[in-house]
């Protein structure tokens, strides 16, 4: 997975103990930070899920109690459902838009760079700011509800509707993310050998056939990469929900990370919050495996 660790090129000097010591000093600051704030917490974060740690209380080992509570907690199931539906809608949609925009801006033409920059702008924009603007966009009588009304679709405020709130959040999410996938796919498209396409063209393949049998197979690894990242990020959706709906109406947009945040930092039940984190971890692993077996199988 990672290039070999040995430095390239022949070494002139054998490493002395002193040199190894100096090298360790260079690694030390980062290593300390890593152990205290990443490695330790990662292990502790899993272990905490098996305790009843709460701020200002005694801590005891409770085994699977938190997970039993999770399974019996309707809020957990609804948060899981919200998160999975959000992911199932936003990842494919975002990838389709990414791929479309990558194909459209693939060949350099006057202004192609400008379009790419525009499409990437939402990616560097905070979801809190986006959330504030989109709250106005989706408000009753606002641009979205007017446009929908004109098309004969539901014209109420989508954020206030327990069914339409997820599609609305999905749209914001796609707006904020597709530029990232677009750039990854564009980079990969540059590497598709021109001869392949020329050959297909000479054989009289239609544009669709060229895309389906030449371009798409070449893009598989990149699509897999984007799918994994997009899924991971979708599972962790929080910022824009916090700003736009607060998890409402009536928990219709209450995601897993929202549950983790509330349990841990509103009710200070950090053990239970960690159990939610472990559930998220397990979901991430399962989905990565599934995607590796399906999308990534030809790697």
């Amino acid at each position, binding site marked *: *997975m990672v*290039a070999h*660790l040995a*430095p390239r*090129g022949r070494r002139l000097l054998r*490493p002395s103990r002193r*040199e190894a*010591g100096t*090298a*360790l000093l*260079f*690694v030390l600051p*980062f*290593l300390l*930070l*890593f152990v*205290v*704030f990443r490695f330790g*917490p990662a292990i*502790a974060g899993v272990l*905490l899920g098996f305790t009843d740690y709460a701020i200002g209380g005694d801590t005891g080992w409770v085994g699977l109690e938190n997970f039993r509570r999770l399974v019996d907690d309707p809020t957990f199931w609804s948060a899981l459902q919200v998160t999975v539906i959000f992911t199932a809608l936003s990842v494919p949609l975002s990838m389709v838009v990414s791929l479309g925009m990558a194909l*459209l*801006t693939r*060949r350099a033409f006057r202004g192609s760079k400008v379009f790419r920059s525009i*499409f990437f*702008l939402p990616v*560097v*924009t*905070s*979801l*809190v*700011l986006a959330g*504030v*603007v989109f709250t*106005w*966009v989706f408000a009753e009588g*606002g641009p979205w509800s*007017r446009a929908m009304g004109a098309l004969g679709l539901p014209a109420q405020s989508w954020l206030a509707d327990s069914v339409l709130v997820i599609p609305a959040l999905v749209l914001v999410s796609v*707006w904020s993310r597709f530029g990232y996938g677009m750039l*990854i796919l564009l*980079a990969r498209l*540059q590497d598709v050998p021109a001869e392949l396409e020329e050959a297909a063209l000479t054989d009289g393949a239609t544009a669709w056939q060229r895309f389906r049998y030449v371009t798409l197979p070449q893009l598989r690894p990149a699509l897999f*990469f984007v799918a*994994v*990242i997009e899924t*991971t990020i979708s*599972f*962790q959706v929080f910022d824009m929900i*916090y*700003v736009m709906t*607060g998890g409402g109406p009536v928990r219709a947009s209450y995601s897993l990370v929202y549950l*983790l945040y509330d349990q*841990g930092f509103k009710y200070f039940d*950090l053990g239970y919050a*960690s159990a939610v*984190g*472990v559930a*998220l*971890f397990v979901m*991430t692993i399962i989905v990565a495996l599934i995607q590796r077996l399906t999308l990534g199988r030809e790697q």
Partner: protein
Amino acid sequence: MTDVLVRQATAPAPPSPARRPRRAGRAWLVGRTVLLVIGALVTLFPFYAMVVLSFKPAGPVTFPDSLLPWPFSTEAYDQVIGAKSVLRWMWNTVVYSVVSVVGVLLFASMAGYAFAKKRFPGKEAMFWSFLAMLMVPYHVTMIPTFIVISQLNGVDTYWGMIVPTLANAQAVFLMRQFIASLPDSLFEAARLDGCSEWRVYVSIVLPLIKPILATLGIFVFLWHWNDFLWPLIVGQSLDMRTLTTGIASLQQENVALNMLLAGSVVAFVPIFVAYLIGQRYVTEGVATSGIKG
């Protein structure tokens, strides 16, 4: 902070040979232009709305009149920039972002140099543990990290917000990858001349890795400037909010829309400027190593 996967550490591919331009059909060209223009308008609309609505006087404005740039008023900005708390949040955001950028670049480049060019005991084990930790979702580590910080009385302090974010393994990978591609002879020569290791790092390594410092610096800046969940739980008091957590709290207090958006514009301008200046680094960073923006 967004958690990131590292793309397989492959060296950037050499630029592909120029393609022979194909004669594209007229219909395709027109269709492409139409689609791209629609896409660009949809993408830019929220930004336009943000700016226009932030220059409205207080009071209700109904759509579609609200999208016209009049009546024009800067009162929302006067109130926002005049508010002591907002100025304080701006300062907090600057401190959080800038100090983190400097810290991440310093520690990651030092570690990256050692990993790329040195041999030392435990190197492999460290490397694989860095890699393994990238698989663990951020939210799992966030809770114990918060406990550590609160035990050390770091809640509502700058250091408590900043220090945990400096443990950025992805930055070390990028540095290691970049420094590994530099020829050994550069360092050997200096060492034979009797330069100390620190001297080699400061006067040879740092100047040579400017491109990766710029790339990573911009990304770390963007991550921190836009970060939300971590500042939300560590910066709990009114005085320790950042622009993102501050604006979110204003929204929950039902502050007028023109003020919310004026605050948003103020928070967005530095990002926009950073993006314009460092666009090349941003796009190359995404394209070659898949850093998440």
